[in-house]
């Protein structure tokens, strides 16, 4: 679990590297143009990914006593 923080790279890949593929208006998702939906999606996924890391992060175990 020492390397769990490497998961933090995923939002960068999703939000930035995949952006050229998401640069389109259609299809609309939840009423949003696709590009805006894509960015919103990754904001939510960033939160989810950090929650997972937090659960397994050994740094949070210390000093809990």
């Amino acid at each position, binding site marked *: 679990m020492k390397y769990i*923080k490497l998961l*933090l790279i995923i*939002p*960068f890949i999703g*939000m*930035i590297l995949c*952006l*050229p593929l998401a*640069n*389109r*208006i259609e299809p*609309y998702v939840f*009423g*949003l*143009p696709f*590009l*805006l939906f894509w*960015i*919103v999606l*990754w*904001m*939510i996924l*960033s*939160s989810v*990914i*950090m*929650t997972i*890391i*937090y659960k397994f*992060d050994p*740094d*949070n175990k*210390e000093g809990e006593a």
Partner: protein
Amino acid sequence: MNTSLIIIFAFAILALYLGIRSTRGKDINMDEFAVGNKGFGTMFVFLLIAGEVYTTFTFLGGSGWAYTNGSAAFYVPAYICLAYVLSYWLIPKVWRYSKKHNIISQPSYFASAFKSTSLGVIAAILGTVALVPYIMIQLKGLGIIVSEASYGAISPALASTIGAIIVTIYVIISGIHGSAWTAVLKDIMILLVIIFLGLYIPYHYFGGVQPLFEAVQSSAPEKLTIASSGLSISWFVSTVLLNALGFYLLPNSFTVALTASSEKALRKNAITLPLYTLLLLFAFFIGFAAIIQIPGLQGSEGDLSLLRLSIQTFDPWIIGVVGAAGLLTALVPASVMLTSASIGLTTGVYKVVKPNSTDRQQLLVSKILIIFIVMISLYFAINGSDALALLNILSYALITQLAPALLFSFAKKPLLNKYGAIAGIIVAVTFVFYMQITGSKIATFFPNVPSVINDISTGMIALIMNFIIAIVVSIATNGLIKETEDEQLPTTGHSVADELAVTKED
């Protein structure tokens, strides 16, 4: 005096009262003034960091950018979100080192981590230079909001001045505590206002969010995707990366991170803040609605789109509440920025000039500096004329040049020394200023480059130069560092990484 102006003034007085009252019963020393004795819980830290997101830039610039530049505006939530992702890893390290060494400002962090008072001085100056345009933006935005929301009953310059006086009073009395308490009021207001406006306007004019975007698609489809040149994908990506790196290097965000009472509070905030940033969507909805409803605002007038559309839609008392929320989104961030800029100068420069100064003297100097910085910012807010977002980008281009020094301060091996860090920063900052002043792009020097390269932001190019120079100079001067350290310190110098490792074992 009209209804909306009365409401705005009531909130201004409430903010002043909360700000002054926040330190009742506390003995204010430098540590308390600057970072609340590193004792703020998750909630206050959350609100203060979120304060950076919900500034006047959100209020005016977010909707303004959507109005003028369409989807390019999405760079804002994108970089803020990635800044939080990065902060999950980065900020607890900074906090741990600062706690151990009793550091209360960014310049002290760099001075301590690289054992170089010169680097501390450079960080202090750079921090101030980056923050003054930011404070100016807040004051200028405040002037615009209050003037518009009062239906012109009060001029922008007068409104900016009154705002500057309020913020100066409570910051001088309460320091960061004043910011924390006014932040509570501010976030309640901005949440209510932005969600209400962001939902009401699309439904009122278009019957929903998707119909709003479909209306934009049929009249101005280019606003809904990122352009192929200019504010293109490569501009977007480089700006997002640069700002994500720079976010916590802004002295105000750095300071707020130091107010936390634990590392866990910082990590928990990193998790929740991207969701909070989703509120920016509502500002975008308003900007896009304004494209259809109030076309014809030119250039920096786009920043007025939210207020103009609101005024067209609502009664004066609602406009008063909107104006009050706008006022608070300027006051709170400005107060944090003022505190951190003045503490940075005091700890980074004044303490170097007068190493034996007492806590009381330092506090006095910080307060004098606050007045000084407010006056400069106010002058530029009233007399300057640039659009809000452009200055915001220049701030980031400058402050992010501290990134190599910050990132390498955690390295297990001292890859970067003080000479390298300083050389990199100086070259990069000079480059940013040169490009800005002469209005140059890469194509100015290499006319044939494709727009993919030409659109990369100046700050990002400077940052790449910075990294290369910092490493090369460090390698070249490592011998020099070894010699002086051998003379001065018989024991080897500890890097931040060493110390972090030690702290962990404790």
